[in-house]
C-alpha cells in the first residue's frame, strides 16, 4: 500500500514520527521538530557539513521515537522504570536504521544523544570525548527547548540558556556549551525557525514507515498486537461487501491503521470497558482526538486527522466530540467506527457467551442506527457471513 510518493511526503512521514515521539515523551506536539530545527541551525553554526547537519536534524526529530519499544510494566519501582527508559535511545537508533537513506550518523546521534559529558548519562555511560559532539549538541538543543516549553506562556530563552550553562562540565561538554552560547548570541530568537536539510529522501516509502510505526504501537500491548493488520483486512472486507458505501478502500484501510496513534496518550484503563458502552466513550473520543492532533503535525497526513477524529461520533448524533449525526459523519469514519469496535469486541469478555454476551456480530447488529451507520453494519454482517 502506497498512497504518497514524494520527497515532501517522506518528510511528512518523518514529521509524523517526530510527533509520535512527542506523544510518547509527554511533550506538546511539535517539540521534537523545534529541537530538530534548533539542532540543525546549531550544527550549521558549528561549521558542520551538509550530511552532519542533516543527520543532526533527523536525529533530533526522531530522538524520542525509541520510547515506542520501551514498555514499562505496571507495578515496578520508580528506579526500575527509570532504568527501563535508558533503552529508548538504542531502540530509536534501531528504528532510524529501518527507515533507510537517512544520513549514516543519524542512528549514532540518536543512540548517544542522552549521554552526559561526565559519564552519568545513558544508555552507555560514555564520557568526555567518547560522545560525538553532534549528539551532545542535540542534547543541548533538546534541553534548551524543553526548558522553554516548561516555562509556559511567558518563555525566556536567556533563562533556558542559563539552565544549559549550569550543566557545563557535567551533562554537557564545556566547548559545546561555549559554542551554543555563541550560537545563541548570534541567532537571538530565530533558533527554531523552520529549516529543511539539504538531504534527499528519494525512494523512501513514507507510508510504509508510518504503518510500521503504527504496528509498533499496537505491539506495545498484548491485546492490540496485530490490530493494524486485522483492521486493514476488516475495513477492506466491509468496503468489498458493499460497494454502495462509496469509500476509497486504500484510504480507509490506511486511516484504520492510523487509529493506533490514539493509544499513545491517555488512560489505557478505558480499554477494560465494553467497547460499545457509554462508560468509556469519553476516553475513546479523547484517544481519537489525540490521534487527530498527532496527524495534524504533518500536512500530508492532516486529511486523515478529520477522519480519525470522528470515529467516536454516533450515527444518531449522541457521540463525541461534536455530536455529528448521520451523513454529516465522514463515510470512512463510519466504517472505522464499526471496524474498531468489532476488533475490540473480538476475543474480549464482552462478546463471550460464557459471560452472557452475544457474539461480536450480534452486538454490532444491535447498535445499527444508534451507534453505527446501518448500511455499514449491513456490510459488516455480510462480510462476516
Amino acid at each position, binding site marked *: 500500500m502506497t498512497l504518497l510518493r514524494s520527497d515532501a511526503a517522506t518528510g511528512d512521514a518523518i514529521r509524523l514520527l517526530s510527533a509520535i515521539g512527542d506523544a510518547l515523551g509527554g511533550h506538546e506536539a511539535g517539540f521534537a521538530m523545534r529541537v530538530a530545527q534548533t539542532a540543525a541551525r546549531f550544527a550549521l553554526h558549528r561549521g558542520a557539513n551538509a550530511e552532519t547537519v542533516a543527520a543532526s536534524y533527523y536525529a533530533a526529530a526522531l530522538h524520542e521515537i525509541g520510547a515506542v519499544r520501551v514498555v514499562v510494566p505496571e507495578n515496578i519501582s520508580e528506579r526500575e522504570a527509570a532504568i527501563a527508559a535508558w533503552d529508548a535511545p538504542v531502540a530509536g537508533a534501531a528504528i532510524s536504521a529501518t527507515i533507510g537513506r537517512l544520513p549514516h550518523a543519524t542512528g549514532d546521534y540518536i*543512540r548517544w544523544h542522552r549521554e552526559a559529558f561526565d559519564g*552519568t548519562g545513558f544508555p552507555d*555511560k560514555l564520557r*568526555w*570525548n*567518547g560522545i560525538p559532539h553532534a549528539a551532545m549538541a542535540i542534547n543541548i538543543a533538546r534541553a534548551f527547548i524543553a526548558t522553554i516549553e516548561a516555562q509556559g506562556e511567558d518563555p525566556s530563552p536567556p533563562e533556558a540558556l542559563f539552565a544549559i550553562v549550569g550543566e557545563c562540565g557535567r551533562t554537557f561538554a*564545556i566547548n559545546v556549551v561555549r559554542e551554543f552560547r555563541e550560537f545563541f548570541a548570534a541567532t537571538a530568537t530565530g533558533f527554531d525557525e523552520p529549516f529543511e536539510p539539504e538531504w534527499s529522501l528519494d525512494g523512501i516509502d513514507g507510508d510504509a514507515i508510518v504503518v510500521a510505526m503504527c504496528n509498533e504501537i499496537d505491539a506495545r500491548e498484548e491485546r492490540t498486537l496485530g490490530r493494524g493488520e486485522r483492521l486493514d483486512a476488516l475495513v477492506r472486507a466491509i468496503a468489498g461487501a458493499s460497494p454502495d458505501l462509496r469509500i476509497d478502500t486504500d484510504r480507509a484501510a490506511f486511516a484504520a491503521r492510523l487509529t493506533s496513534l490514539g493509544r499513545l496518550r491517555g488512560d489505557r484503563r478505558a480499554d477494560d470497558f465494553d467497547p460499545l458502552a457509554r462508560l468509556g466513550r469519553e476516553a475513546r473520543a479523547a484517544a481519537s482526538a489525540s490521534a487527530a492532533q498527532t496527524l495534524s503535525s504533518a500536512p500530508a497526513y492532516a486529511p486523515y486527522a478529520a477522519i480519525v477524529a470522528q470515529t467516536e461520533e454516533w450515527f444518531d448524533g449522541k457521540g463525541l466530540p461534536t455530536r455529528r449525526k448521520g451523513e454529516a459523519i465522514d463515510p470512512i469514519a463510519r466504517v472505522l467506527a464499526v471496524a474498531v469496535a468489532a476488533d475490540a469486541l473480538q476475543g474480549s469478555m464482552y462478546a463471550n457467551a460464557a459471560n452472557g454476551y452475544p457474539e461480536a456480530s450480534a452486538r454490532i447488529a444491535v447498535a445499527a442506527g444508534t451507534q453505527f451507520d446501518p448500511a455499514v453494519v449491513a456490510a459488516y454482517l455480510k462480510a462476516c457471513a
Partner: protein
Amino acid sequence: MIDLGERTRRVSGSRLHDLIAERGIRSIVDPFMGMPTHLNYLKRHGIIVHGGDLVEWFVRAGEGLVVNDFTVLRDSEVAEIVEMLPGRIYPIDLFKGWDGVFFSQEQCEYLGVWHANVHNLRSDGQTGLAIVGLWHVLCYWLQKAHHPDEMADLPPSELAWQYIRATERWVCTNNARNTVRRADFNATLSAVRTDCVYIAPPGRNSAKKADARIWMWEAWWQGDPYLNIEHYYRDTVFGQRTSDDGSYDRAISSVLQAAEASPYVVVQTTAAEAERFAKIVRPFRSDIQIVSPHPEETYVIGKK
C-alpha cells in the same frame, strides 16, 4: 596544570550488545575491562559478564556495577561517605602532596576524608559504588581546574552526594553469577568459560598515555599521592622491553591464544587498524568478520 586527554576511546555496551545479540552470544569476558560500564549495560540486558583488570579501582568499580546485584546506598549511607563523621580522626593530610598542585586544600582534605570513609564501608558492592561516584567528583575538579569560570562551583560533599546517588542507580541484576578479578588476561581467561571474549586492546605505549583521571584515582584508592602505575602496564603482556609493532602484535596473539576456548572473539579497533588486527586474529579464528559502524569504532569478530 594536569593534561586531560582530548581523545577518549569509545567502548559502547549497547553497540556490543547489538553485535553479540545477533550472534546468540549469552556470556562474555573482557580481560582488559577498565571502567566496566559496558559490562554493566550487558548485564542489564541479561548477558552473563566477567571482567579483569590490573588497576584495582577498576576492579572495585566492577564489584559495585557488575558483581553486585542488590546492594544500593541509602541516603544515610551516602552521608556517611561524603561527610566527616563526628568523633572520628581523619587523615586529612594524606593527600597534602596534591595540595596547591592539582587541588585546593579543602579538596585535598575531602579526598582524605572520603578515602577513610570508603575504606570503612561494609560491603564490596557499596565500596564499588562509592568509588565510582567519588571518581566523578575527581574528574569534575580536574576539569574545573581547566575551566574555573565555566563550571559551577559546588560544595564537595554536595557534588559527591549527587554523583554517588547517580551511580547507585546503575545497580541491576541478571540472575546469574558475574565476576571481576584483579588479574592479568591469562588468569581471567582461564578462570571463566564464556561464549565470547571481548578485547579492546590497550594501545602501544599505553602507560605513557594513561589518563590522569585513571592513575590519580588509583593513587587515591591506594592512599599514596605519589603512586605511579607505569609498572602495571610493564607487568602485562604489552609491557615488553622493546615497544615495536612486532612485540605488540605478539602480545595480542598471546591474548587470542588464551581465548581459544571461546567460540567467539571480538576485538575492538579503528577502521585504519582493522585489517592489521584481522591478520592477527586469522590464525586463531577461521571465520572473520569486520563490522565498522564508525571509523573510530570497528570490530573484528572472529568465530571458530
